[in-house]
């Protein structure tokens, strides 16, 4: 989980050209479209990980 999570955090941060602070905070605060899309993506990915992948890995809890 740490290995794969870390890998896609690194890959995604460069693919999207920014992370939580770069897009969500700096990007949204300067009203950039690209950052709004990236933040929607962050949240979509996070929701999938939390509600689909983690229950798959750990079982229902």
């Amino acid at each position, binding site marked *: 989980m740490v290995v794969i999570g870390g890998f896609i955090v*690194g890959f995604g941060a460069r*693919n999207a050209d920014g992370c939580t602070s770069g897009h969500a*905070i700096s990007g949204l605060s300067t009203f950039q479209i690209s950052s709004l*899309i990236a933040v929607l993506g962050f949240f979509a990915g996070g929701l999938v*990980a939390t509600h689909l992948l983690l229950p798959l890995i750990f079982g229902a809890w």
Partner: protein
Amino acid sequence: MDERRGLLRYVFLGVFLGIAFTKGEVISWFRIQEMFRFQSFHMFGIIGSAVAVAAVATGLIKRLGMRSLGGSEIVTKVKPSAGLNYRYWVGGSLFGLGWGLLGACPGPIYALIGNGISVMFVALFTALAGAWAYGYLAPRLPHH
């Protein structure tokens, strides 16, 4: 201004950010999970207030023509939006997947290591590998 004194200030700001991340529980796996389960306002409040403060701060910086600690002009980096913005959708979703799985985004990885959570060395290493892999594949990936 003396360049090295400027650099030292960045170190202090970094330390301050690490303390803020820790005290604000931004580095907490549980807080991230809570956010994605909509069980608490905590993370939404932190990110939302950070955006509000940053919006006012960047507005002031521009209006007053403020300069960085090193004395250079502060320029807002505009991340280009073009076509379908494929890179932001795909890269953003991948990043989010990692954020949910790992329970930490890049900044907090460092703060967690500083807090003695040594497993995060593994995350730091694989995140660097991921960033390198992107760099390797980038010419073949669609970005727009």
